[in-house]
């Protein structure tokens, strides 16, 4: 009897919650929320947070090597912003994890064991300075497109964090574009560096938005749309990316490693060659070209700083 009452209470709460979502209301951290809503958010925001943190690493490779004093200052600030985004998002996800008795430490453990994945683009090599430019221009450009969609997320703390993140990402895209323009207008060797980097990043950029839907939308995407955590499909986002960047890439006199890409006026969409989605799965599972090395970097620094975290905790206890 009691179980039944509890169940019907639960159903009623869920219905009320869904009604709030339908009315376009925003959910706050302390509000009641169904477990699957919480879990979807944790999955999404934890992945976003660690992607920002892991995403600092490929560009960071070029921070100490940036070619001029101005570039050195700019890229250091840019990568610092990414780490800062990671921190903002960690704070959002920490609040969601708290009722489950989990902390930031658990997230890092999940990252190291491979349970928590990070974005495919950050598993890739960044072997030249031009890669630092292309990451800023196109990877951040792609991120702006997905994050702008989530500005309207039903979860208010995430939307607020994204509001600030998007503002900074726009600067990043300009920073990347400035590096790219300088190379595009530079010597033949500089242009070649840039073209090679665009070729290298193209498949990863397509993968960034996730596999296409082929008429069926994954249960994951469906749930996120039902809860208005996201409002557009992977393919819609990828098309928006093409709309914005393919003309710009061609305008710089660069080519794409996809000879078939074309815009169909009648259909109002881009046709393009699919990247290898099997490879995508391998990459996000942690089998990308630089996955192991980047995780190792984070792991070593995390483990070797254990004594520092211990010291801070001990100090906190004494002070408390």
């Amino acid at each position: 009897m009691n179980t039944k009452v509890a169940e019907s209470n639960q159903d009623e709460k869920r219905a009320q919650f869904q009604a709030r979502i339908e009315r376009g209301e925003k959910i706050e951290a302390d509000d009641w929320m169904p477990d699957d809503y919480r879990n979807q958010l944790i999955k999404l925001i934890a992945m976003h947070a660690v992607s920002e943190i892991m995403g600092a690493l490929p560009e960071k490779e070029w921070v100490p090597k940036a070619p001029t004093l101005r570039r050195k200052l700019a890229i250091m600030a840019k990568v610092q912003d990414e780490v800062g985004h990671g921190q903002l998002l960690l704070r959002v996800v920490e609040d969601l994890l708290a009722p489950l008795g989990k902390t930031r430490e658990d997230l890092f453990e999940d990252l190291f064991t491979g349970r928590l994945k990070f974005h495919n683009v950050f598993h890739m090599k960044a072997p030249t300075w031009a890669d630092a430019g292309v990451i800023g221009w196109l990877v951040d450009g792609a991120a702006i497109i997905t994050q702008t969609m989530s500005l309207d997320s039903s979860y208010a703390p995430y939307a607020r964090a994204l509001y600030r993140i998007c503002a900074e990402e726009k600067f990043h895209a300009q920073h990347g574009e400035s590096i790219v323009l300088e190379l595009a207008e530079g010597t033949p060797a500089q242009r070649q560096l840039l073209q090679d980097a665009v070729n290298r990043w193209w498949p990863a950029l397509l993968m960034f938005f996730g596999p296409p839907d082929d008429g069926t939308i994954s249960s994951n995407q469906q749930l996120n749309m039902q809860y208005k955590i996201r409002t557009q499909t992977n393919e819609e986002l990828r098309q928006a990316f093409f709309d914005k960047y393919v003309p710009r890439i061609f305008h710089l006199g660069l080519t794409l490693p996809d000879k078939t890409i074309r815009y169909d006026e009648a259909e109002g969409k881009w046709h393009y060659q699919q990247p290898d989605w099997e490879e995508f799965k391998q990459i996000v599972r942690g089998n990308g070209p630089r996955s192991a090395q980047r995780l190792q970097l984070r792991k070593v620094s995390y483990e070797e700083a254990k004594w520092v975290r211990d010291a801070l905790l001990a100090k906190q206890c004494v002070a408390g």
Partner: protein
Amino acid sequence: MIDYSRVQSAQLAMQNAAYLLALKELLFQLADDDFILAYRGSEWLGLAPHIEEDVAFSSIAQDTMGHAVILYEMLEELGAGKADDLAQLRNPEDFRNAILVERRNGAGEYLENPHYDWAYAIARNYSYGLFKQIRLESLHNSSYLPLAQVSRKMLTELNYHLFHWQVWIRHLAESTEEARRRLEAALEKVWDDIGDLFSLGPLAAHMVNFGLIAGEELLLQRWKEKGKEVFHSIGLEWPGDPRVPQQNGRAGEHTDDLVQALATLSEVYRLDPTAKW
């Protein structure tokens, strides 16, 4: 007749060869110290003990590199060459930074298995920061007015950096036994190197006579006074007088660590220094 106790511009400084030489030598010391330490800071990016510290440390490294840029640009104005070339194309023996700032962050490379020592980062940045504070205060009275002017702006930023590192020193000294042990070991390591930080190099007498900066003894004495006061308040034992390293960075003598740092930081620029980047 130019008054060499108040030199208002680069043009005026350039009219006296001896003054110009001493001034440039001093500016290279200031710029190279900040530039190389900021470079070491940039290697730490993404690897600090926690995310919040990563953001804070990077801000400090950016400020510090910003100071170096201002100083290299002052050198450019004095006809020493293009600021980017000064930072990236000079040979190691032309650098005037102290040995302390060029030391590696720890074993390994920033790209591969960096076994960086956070206690050393704190000890080095704090000790250097305290010295920089004293040096900047002295530069407030420099006869080269453009330098006196920027020293005030730099000091307001540096005071925050120093406060940050002082909080860390206190945290480590007052927490676990391990943290204190590591901090003390790192301070010992810093003390082994720190001697030439106070050196003004071969042109020291000219710098002082031209009123560019206070003398070495005075800088060292002030640093010791302030340092002892802080150490005492935390209950840390003062490691004694700074020891002089084998090389004197102010005279262009350096370790392989600087050679490695310069090769890395100029790798892209050297692909084509005449190109625009």
